[in-house]
């Protein structure tokens, strides 16, 4: 658990609209403390990816737009910045589905991560070694075209590539997607190590609530573009709603999903 409670990234009540008409985020607020792992949870289409892209400013190329609210990084509004400027400020996104450059080798992929850096070849080479110590598999495959490596290796490549920008914060979108449980475990363990040893803060979007809440310090649960629950990870893990709907366990046997949810939701909103 991070000691300092200094807030690094603050998302205030943002609204996102795609194609001028599709309202996807309906006022999302969250805080990412320095040195922590913050999980952003929710099912398909809840708006996790949209939230991350709103922060990293990758929405523009998808015809999406933040129409309300603000994103503050280290006390400065950043929602007008280009993705490039944001990477220079230390915020980098690892996109859902990895998005490695498939015709580039693993090593070339990693080097593109250092594109915005101006601190010289030696520093970049040192960081390349650092990435290889966290991901020894990447070192073995460094001459292979990324498109021909396994899904797990591509996920590692994508995270390694982000690390090469020397980020302070990584927005990590669904790293578990399509990976075997053992590999998911391996990747989350590396994320934890990076967090503890390199001091990188993470905002982690995941459908895999179980794993995410084991590794995160705190979490937010998103449903249809709204934050419906938030708190320390340990508390969320024990919350009966979370247990039932996101962790797939229930004390009282199976009930009609919709009934229970709307009832509890109402309770939550009225409370």
């Amino acid at each position, binding site marked *: 658990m991070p000691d300092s409670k200094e807030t690094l990234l603050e998302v205030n009540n943002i609204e996102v609209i795609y194609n001028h008409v599709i309202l996807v985020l309906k006022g999302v607020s969250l805080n990412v403390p320095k040195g922590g792992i913050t999980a952003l949870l929710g099912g398909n289409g809840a708006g996790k990816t949209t939230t991350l892209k709103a922060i990293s400013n*990758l929405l523009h190329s998808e015809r999406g737009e933040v129409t309300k609210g603000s994103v503050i990084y280290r006390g400065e509004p950043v929602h007008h910045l280009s993705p490039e400027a944001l990477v220079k400020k230390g915020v980098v996104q*690892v996109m859902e589905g990895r*998005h*490695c*450059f498939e015709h580039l080798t693993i090593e070339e*992929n990693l080097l*593109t991560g250092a594109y915005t850096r101006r601190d010289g070849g030696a520093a970049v080479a040192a960081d390349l070694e650092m990435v290889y110590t966290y991901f020894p598999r990447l070192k073995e495959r460094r001459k292979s075209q990324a498109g021909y490596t396994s899904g797990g290796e591509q996920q590692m490549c994508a995270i390694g590539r982000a690390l090469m920008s020397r980020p302070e914060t990584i927005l990590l979108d669904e790293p578990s997607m*399509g990976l075997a449980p053992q590999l998911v475990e391996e990747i989350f363990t590396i994320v934890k190590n990076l967090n503890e040893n390199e001091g990188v803060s993470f905002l982690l979007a995941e459908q895999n609530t179980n794993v995410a809440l084991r590794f995160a310090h705190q979490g937010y649960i998103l449903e249809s573009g709204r934050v419906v629950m938030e708190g320390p990870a340990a508390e969320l893990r024990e919350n009966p709603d979370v247990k039932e709907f996101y962790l797939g366990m229930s004390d009282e046997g199976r009930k009609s999903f919709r009934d229970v949810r709307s009832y509890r939701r109402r309770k939550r909103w009225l409370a």
Partner: protein
Amino acid sequence: MSADFLYGIEVVLNGLMAGVLYALVALGFVLIFKASGIFNFAQGVMALFAALTLVGIMEGQVPFAHLINAVFGTNIHHFGWQVPAILAIFLTVLVMIAFAWAVQHFVFRHLVGQEPIILFMATIGLAYFLEGVGDLMWGSSIRTLALGLPQGGSLWVEEMTNGLGGDDFYGFFIDKLDMVATLVALVLVAGLVAFAQYTKQGRAMRAVADDHQAALSVGISLSYIWVLVWSLAGIVALVAGVMWGAKSGVQFSLSLIALKALPVLMLGGFTSIPGAIVGGMIIGVGEKLFEYTIGAPYLGGATENWFAYMLALVFLVFRPQGLFGERIIERV
């Protein structure tokens, strides 16, 4: 060796050299298409414009002279100086870079995320616009390019190879200009490949070609890379324009070399640099050899106008992605 066979080889050699020029033009297309998915219809006009600009600068012509004279009632045409070739080439490159920037800034920046067909339409507009600007800047008369490139057949090659055949063979006839063009093209291609392969910007260029979103996410500026590829395409166009222009004068028909590059692209694939080169060679050699063996004796000649398209069409039917069309990597 029989003289016929040796003349056949000569045809192949000449075809290879013509192919190099086709390859150069095709290369301009590939660069832009790979990085941005834009099929740049204006590539041929860019070659014309670049060559015109080079001639204009070298001759110390006042750009937009006609316009200036019409507006201000002056009568100026020349600055009265000659610019040395090297300096003129350098200035022309700067003009092409400025053009690349303008294209990105005034046109494609506003078309991000549009359908490919719309981008294509934009390049058609661009082609005619550039043609007009070229006319307005430098006039529309036929110009000769006095770069001092060697002309005529190479006596040296002729003499060296004279003894190969019997009495009927007088040695290979090879145009010196073609030899220079081939050499320059080889250097240019080697330079481009080295740039793409071993430099940071080149790597970024390939990254953008692979995945725009991912490139953005690591902080690569797409518009910067696009200005870069349009500049490179402009430089390639300049080289193609110079070589072609030195051969047959700098005039409007130069912009039609783009049409020669199309079958090359169909053959080599739109995304492959080696494809453009090998495709250019195949088309160059193919059309010359076809003309020599079948076209001239049996079909009344002039088959070079359509042979390339025929070949490309046949090829397309069997291998739509082209000879070297980038392999689509299929796995999760």
